[in-house]
């Protein structure tokens, strides 16, 4: 049998020595869009980091492409999964295009320099997130939302089968949120990628997700979105009455 892209078995999310959430078991296949929801401090970021970095409990509980995370060489792992962190901090000035070009690093040999093809690919990725005019701008002058879209462009250029994004929509305006979701789902349709993304807006999660993970309840939940996201569960997890509404042919979540 062909191994799943990501196979998580009995994973505990640790915050330092403390067990925060678990045990979690789920399988991610190519073409699936997983949304991770939960209240603040429920371990969303830690789970995403555990899934994308080798080390700790994840090294033995997570298999990527059938191989334990701890057994992947770093350079090879970078061709398989990419992470867009929640916050980015730049200490030095750099043109936006150069920041995006870093996504090519795992695909180039030590002797290679980024060439014309790489630059064209980077520009195409900037175009997809709507920032092609920003190629020569200094990354330090970008707004929070623009910087986040640059990070997403870097991930697109890295082109990993497993894309992990930590609240990529947090700083984006409504139109850009939809643009980024469209960009992410476009690549899923070709079957070349799976996405795991944490998000606070349940309506946005409902819009794109095929599967969902809910942290913060008595037990973490993971599975197909229709089985996981229901009013009763979410109300108890968030500690606030939440209700589902249908309008414009979509499902929306509102806090009562």
């Amino acid at each position, binding site marked *: 049998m062909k191994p799943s892209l990501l196979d998580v078995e009995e994973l505990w999310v640790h915050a330092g020595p403390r067990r925060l959430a678990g045990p979690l078991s789920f399988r991610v296949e190519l073409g699936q869009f997983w949304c991770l929801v939960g209240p603040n401090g429920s371990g969303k970021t830690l789970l995403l980091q555990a899934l994308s970095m080798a080390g700790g409990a994840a090294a033995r509980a997570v298999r990527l492409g059938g191989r334990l995370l701890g057994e992947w060489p*770093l350079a090879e792992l970078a061709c398989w999964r990419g992470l867009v962190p929640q916050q980015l901090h730049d*200490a030095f*000035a750099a043109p936006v295009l150069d920041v995006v070009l870093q996504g090519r690093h795992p695909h180039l040999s030590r002797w290679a320099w980024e060439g014309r093809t790489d630059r064209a690919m980077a520009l195409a990725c900037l175009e997809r997130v709507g920032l092609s005019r920003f190629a020569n701008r200094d990354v330090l002058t970008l707004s929070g939302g623009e910087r986040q879209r640059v990070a997403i462009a870097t991930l697109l250029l890295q082109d990993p089968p497993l894309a992990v994004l930590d609240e990529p929509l947090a700083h984006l305006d409504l139109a850009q949120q939809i643009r980024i979701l469209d960009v992410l789902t476009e690549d899923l349709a070709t079957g070349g990628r799976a996405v795991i993304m944490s998000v606070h807006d349940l309506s946005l999660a409902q819009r794109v997700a095929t599967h969902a993970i809910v942290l913060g309840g008595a037990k973490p939940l993971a599975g197909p979105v229709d089985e996981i996201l229901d009013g009763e569960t979410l109300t108890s997890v968030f500690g606030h009455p939440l209700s589902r509404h249908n309008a414009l042919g979509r499902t929306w979540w509102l806090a009562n």
Partner: protein
Amino acid sequence: MNVRAIVLPHTHGPARAVWLLLCAGIVCLLVFVLALACGSNPIRWADLPRLLFAADASVEADIVHRLRLPRAIAAATTGALLSMAGALMQVLVRNPLADPYVLGLSGGAALGALSAIALGTAAWTVNLGAFIGALLAIVIVFGLAGPDLGRLEQVSAADPSPRLLLTGVMLSALAMAGVSLILTVAPVERLRSMVFWMLGDLSGAIASVPALLSVPLLAVLSVLFGRELNLLLRGPGAAQLLGVNVRRLRLLIYVAASLAAALSVNTAGTIGFVGLVVPHALRLLIGNDQRVLVPASGLAGAAFMLAADTAARTLIAPQQLPVGAVTAMVGAPVFLWLLSRRR
């Protein structure tokens, strides 16, 4: 502190690197020739090739071969080593204000050298003392903060590696306390040479073979690991995610930059400002690709040090200034000017 690049690159890739390095190399060569020609006993440019390549028994040939050539080579070597070490340290601690001595190396070196001077041992032991002191500082800082080299903190944390930096600063403070103690109790007639050593002085300096060899070695290393250095500069977490072994890379930078600085200190004492100003200024001029920046820093640093030393020899000739005083006098205003023209 963030500084915008004044000139964002317009052309790219190896061609631009070769072009920039060629320009820097030509400047460096011109200053080198200038350093040979100038001095309390000026030599005509037209005579230089003959004196260099077909030396006769004249006084001029003697001056060029016995005095100016070794000194110019020592100046170029220390300038190149300090500038490249500075550029690498700025990557290591992710701070554009770092210099080669930021991790406590100068304190250890000064303590070693001044102990040797105070004991009144032979001249060569002073440099050896400085080298041993610098090595000790490197080992102690690594022993205390070494595990931090592999720490990624949060994947996106702003924090570079504060324990490394603070350990270096504290060790330096401790060593400088020892230095003050030596300065207080040392015999008066030795104070002058102590002060000269601490300022950095190239008179009678000879570049050792390891120092000479490490210049091209450092340049080649920084080109080979250039893309990884660029990634590390953007953040250790992001770099690791893109396949860089952050711990190994930081260890490599730490050892390479520290050894380069120690070799330079071994040649000419703790000359300041070169390792801070040259990479910083170049970053503003040619951008922040380490594959270009580090080798270019080497060439520009060599040129800067040659010019500073020529000035130190000629400004109040036949008296000589310590070259460190000149680099500080020129370096500090230039640095302030660069800061003030930030947009």
